[in-house]
């Protein structure tokens, strides 16, 4: 044992520099794992501590309809049964906000929240400048708004804004409010007003999209029973009840998922480092072959020698992992600086490396180093001491032990990944995906090397030898292609996808198609709206008024599916349970095609419905089945007479899952939506929106140009995040490249010395190196780029369902930049080769 320890120390002392880069790869991966896990755990801690303020209550009862008298009675009864519950009500609705000053023609969609005096029951509303929140601030038509609203409609604190038919004075700026989740999708900035002032806006008219909520504060021990009772009470109604605990559980699950999936990114980098460790161990053993033979000659057993190198690998793996923890600590320490004076919930977390993350990271680093080095180390068994007597080649061999160890290592890797992702399925999928990708990149590498092989007979001496070097014994070509190629693949792939998506959205917005969407046009406003839009204000284009109703499926009786009541639809209805926006018309839109049954012509008093194909298939509803809908409290049971295929991408005039035959719904309470081509210039668009809302205060406008901006913004953040990940992978690839150059430097120095004695000058040798690494970099870039083409094709075709485009610029830039990067780093790390004096080298050899 002492021998093993001593030899491991001596070997590490002599070779750590050569192996350093590979363990820095491990360090980067470990840093990614530790940092991501620690940050998420820290943020989660804040959420855990403020679980109640997430929904601002113990129990939340919500509905998107008016509270019926019966529902209120039931709630009253249950709350009094539960004893001493404190409560408050809020209403939230999206609406347009505009400056009251009519000389400023602009309007902006906002998310209005009307609150009562007791709000919030938990947490607190933070205002800019440290001003304390009191309900008095909103009483008497006061409003608290998010700071971004000020800039978007050009108002400031103290100014008046118009919401619906009422005017409010801005009395403060909200920086944080309980019950508004982090990163939740929002249609616009928050505006808080008094509950009692909401009616004056006229926004609660028919068809409004207001969400009414009752927030309850009550003794802890009665929370769950109240939730269960109310859920049972309202199981056939559209009223949801949830507790802070279910929210906490949901958030907890989301965090778990985020933590586990993000950590996989780190694990992939660690595994990439592991592949490099495996490759370098193979070369290392080849270089140590004589020393191992000597050890065997003086009495060392194979097991002892393997133990020496295993210990060495583990020592370096541990050092790399600890370095990774240090790097994570450094990165995490920078977070508060990056967040600056932000008052978001993220800024409240106390960031630091958590013990559990550090232990996991170090464990994974050491384990991956070990797992990936064991198989190549088994070759030690086949090294014969007799090679000291005569030069004999030790060929790579496999035996049942090697195969058994390989299987065990693979299983261990799957287990490790499954543990990190907390899912065996994900573990298997990620490992097989990675193995598949590695195999594809491996064969792509081989294919490309074969492709450039004819250059080995080129007339250019440096090019000829550069190509030959790519397939020399003990080369690191494939591992470099894998690592650098994977990094390039990530970066080029995500950039291409971004370009593809953005161009798709741009085309949709830029084409002569509707780019504005008017919502909540009341029946009584339809004629006025037609007249207003017909006048083409500010250059607005064609429009169409489409009647819409909000409906829920409450039953199905059909050949395959029978659902009775809301509860069954929710539980078994395969996505039928949500609220749908429906319409009626007597024609198919250009993006629709009947695939089963026949579409009606003309109105009929008998209710008939046409269903979109995907939901029909998912819910197993067929032509001839009868469905039951609840449309604002009224029940209607149409027969399914056709199934439609809807091209959602082309749904410029709104896509509908359920289209009814005109007749049955004509007199039902309804509103209209109007897709239209808005004015061209931003100023005209702002003026158009303002004039429209001025005339129809309850109408909301969704501007696709603004949506596009938001999408662009979100996508650039996502792209940046994935590019950083790709950058880390590429960095690992570069480190592996530097390490590979360091590993094979002795061989290169010797070859250069021979070439120099044969008359090659430094320029020739530099060109040789430049060609070698240039070819290697081009191949890696090409592999990444080809992979990215396949990725964008797959994602465009199957996930996003958008036309597949190849962005030549992204791909060419990818290949060229990778080639330049690899060539410069390859040559820069080979400076010793150029500088070494041939005689000294040959003598040493």
């Amino acid at each position, binding site marked *: 044992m*002492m*021998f093993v320890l*001593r*030899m491991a120390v*001596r*070997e590490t*002392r*002599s*070779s750590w520099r050569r192996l350093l880069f590979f363990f820095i790869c491990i360090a980067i991966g470990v840093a990614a794992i530790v940092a991501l896990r620690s940050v998420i755990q820290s943020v989660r801690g804040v959420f855990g501590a403020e679980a109640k303020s997430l929904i601002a209550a113990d129990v939340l009862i919500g509905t998107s309809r008016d509270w019926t008298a019966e529902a209120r009675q039931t709630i009253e009864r249950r709350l009094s049964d539960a004893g001493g519950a404190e409560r408050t009500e809020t209403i939230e609705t999206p609406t347009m906000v505009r400056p009251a000053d009519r000389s400023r023609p602009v309007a902006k969609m906002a998310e209005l929240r009307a609150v009562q005096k007791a709000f919030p029951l938990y947490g607190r509303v933070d205002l800019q400048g440290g001003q304390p929140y009191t309900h008095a601030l909103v009483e008497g038509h006061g409003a608290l708004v998010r700071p971004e609203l000020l800039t978007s409609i050009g108002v400031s604190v103290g100014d008046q804004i118009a919401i619906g038919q009422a005017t409010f004075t801005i009395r403060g700026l909200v920086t944080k409010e309980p019950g508004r989740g982090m990163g939740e999708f929002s249609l616009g900035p928050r505006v808080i007003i008094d509950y009692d002032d909401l009616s004056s806006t006229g926004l609660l008219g028919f068809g409004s999209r207001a969400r009414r909520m009752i927030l309850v504060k009550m003794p802890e021990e009665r929370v769950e029973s109240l939730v269960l009772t109310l859920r049972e009470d309202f199981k056939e109604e559209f009223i949801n009840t949830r507790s802070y605990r279910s929210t906490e559980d949901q958030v907890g699950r989301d965090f778990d998922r985020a933590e586990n999936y993000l950590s996989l990114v780190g694990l992939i980098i660690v595994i990439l480092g592991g592949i490099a460790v495996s490759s370098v161990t193979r070369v290392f053993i080849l270089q140590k072959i*004589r*020393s191992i*033979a*000597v*050890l*065997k*000659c*003086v*009495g*060392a*057993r*194979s*097991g*002892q020698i393997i133990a020496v190198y295993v210990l060495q690998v583990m020592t370096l793996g541990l050092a790399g992992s600890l370095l990774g923890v240090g790097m994570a600590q450094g990165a995490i320490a920078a977070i508060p600086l990056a967040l600056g004076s932000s008052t978001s919930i993220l800024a409240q977390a106390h960031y630091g490396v958590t013990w559990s993350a550090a232990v996991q990271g170090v464990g994974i680093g050491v384990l991956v180093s070990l797992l990936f080095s064991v198989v190549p180390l088994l070759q030690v*068994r086949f090294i*014969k*001491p*007799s090679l*000291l*007597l*005569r030069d004999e080649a030790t060929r790579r061999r496999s035996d049942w032990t090697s195969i058994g160890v390989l299987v065990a290592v693979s299983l261990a890797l799957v287990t490790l990944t499954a543990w990190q992702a907390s899912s065996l399925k994900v573990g298997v999928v990620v490992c097989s995906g990675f193995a598949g990708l590695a195999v594809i990149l491996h064969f792509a590498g081989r294919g490309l090397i074969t492709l450039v092989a004819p250059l080995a007979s080129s007339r250019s001496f440096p090019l000829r030898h550069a190509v030959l070097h790519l397939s020399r014994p003990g080369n690191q070509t494939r591992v470099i292609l894998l690592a650098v190629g994977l990094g390039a693949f990530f970066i080029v792939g995500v950039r291409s996808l971004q370009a593809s998506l953005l161009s798709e959205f741009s085309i949709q917005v830029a084409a002569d198609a509707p780019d504005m969407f008017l919502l909540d046009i009341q029946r009584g406003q339809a004629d006025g709206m037609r007249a207003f839009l017909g006048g083409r204000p500010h250059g607005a284009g064609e429009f169409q008024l489409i009647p819409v109703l909000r409906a829920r499926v409450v039953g199905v009786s059909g050949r395959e599916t029978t659902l009775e009541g809301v509860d069954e639809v929710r539980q078994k209805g395969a996505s039928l349970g949500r609220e749908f926006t429906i319409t009626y018309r007597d024609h198919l839109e250009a993006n629709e095609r009947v695939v089963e049954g026949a579409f009606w012509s003309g109105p009929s008093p008998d209710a008939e419905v046409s269903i979109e194909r995907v939901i029909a298939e998912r819910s197993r509803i067929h032509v001839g089945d009868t469905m039951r809908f609840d449309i604002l409290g009224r029940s209607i049971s149409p027969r399914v007479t056709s199934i439609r295929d809807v091209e959602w991408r082309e749904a410029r005039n709104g896509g509908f899952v359920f289209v009814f035959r005109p007749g049955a719904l004509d007199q039902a309470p309804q509103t209209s939506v109007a897709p239209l081509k808005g004015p061209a210039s931003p100023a005209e668009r702002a003026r158009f929106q303002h004039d429209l809302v001025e005339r129809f205060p309850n109408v909301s406008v969704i501007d696709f140009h603004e949506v596009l901006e938001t999408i662009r913004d979100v996508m650039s953040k996502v792209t940046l995040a994935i590019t950083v990940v790709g950058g880390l992978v590429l960095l690992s690839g570069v480190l592996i490249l530097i390490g590979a150059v360091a590993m094979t430097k002795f061989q290169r120095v010797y070859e250069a010395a021979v070439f120099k004695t044969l008359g090659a000058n430094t320029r020739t040798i530099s060109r040789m190196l430049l060609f070698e690494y240039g070819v290697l970099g081009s191949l890696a870039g090409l592999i990444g780029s080809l992979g990215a083409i396949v990725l964008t094709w797959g994602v465009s075709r199957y996930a996003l369902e958008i036309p597949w485009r190849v962005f030549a610029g992204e791909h060419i830039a990818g290949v060229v930049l990778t080639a330049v990067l690899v060539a410069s780093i390859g040559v820069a790390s080979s400076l010793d080769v150029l500088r070494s004096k041939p005689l000294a080298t040959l003598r*040493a050899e």
Partner: protein
Amino acid sequence: MIELREVSKTVMSGSEPLTILHPMSLEIPHGRFVAIVGPSGSGKSTLLGLIAGLDAPSSGEVLIDGVDITRLDEDALARLRGEKIGFVFQFFHLIPSLTAYENVAVPMEIAGAADARTRAEMLLEEVSLTGRAHHYPSQLSGGEQQRVALARALANDPSIVLADEPTGNLDSANGRHIMELLRKVHGSRGTTVVLVTHDAELAAMADARLVLRDGRVVENTLEHTLGLRPIDRLGVVPGGVEGRQGHGEQPEGPLVLSSSKKEPTR
């Protein structure tokens, strides 16, 4: 006692079998200094490798102190080499990542010897390399490297030292020095030394000669010299071999190379 019974070695040369050693039998009694001579390719090194268990014969048995080493697995062979055989190579074969001292200490560390450090220092002193103990092989001259290799071969106080052209890569002065050391080892400890060389002058220093040509023994003086004690022939008094203490004078200076005869702890 080294004993070879009908030992042969055949390897594949391309697709053709090539016999390097034809079946041969011989005995080298304990304490002999035998030179194996012959031209290049005659099978000298192969024979030495078979005796050391570095290679397996194609047929026959190799017995070291009565144990048939052809039946041992790799690990048992390694253990046997560690205990009984020291090897000196033409190209030194020191481990480049270890210092001179560490190279000498390694066999003892493998064997689990408790006094590895002291003994390694002593052995280096005996080959006059105390001052170079912490130098790496690349910092030593060829002669110095071979002396380190010899000290390493003696680390576990083996009963057999096998030397494969130990002077082949050295100038004549260094070559002479190494031969003197080998003679001292043999003389002072009664170690069996088997030396492969194609230098007739060096071969003459041995007490018996085995001449190989094309894988066959063409001359074997072992039989003629049987019974003649090596010390009588070499004129060197044994120093540390049990039962031979006191037969004459101890050589002076650093070339003592005495045996510690301590059992390694395992």
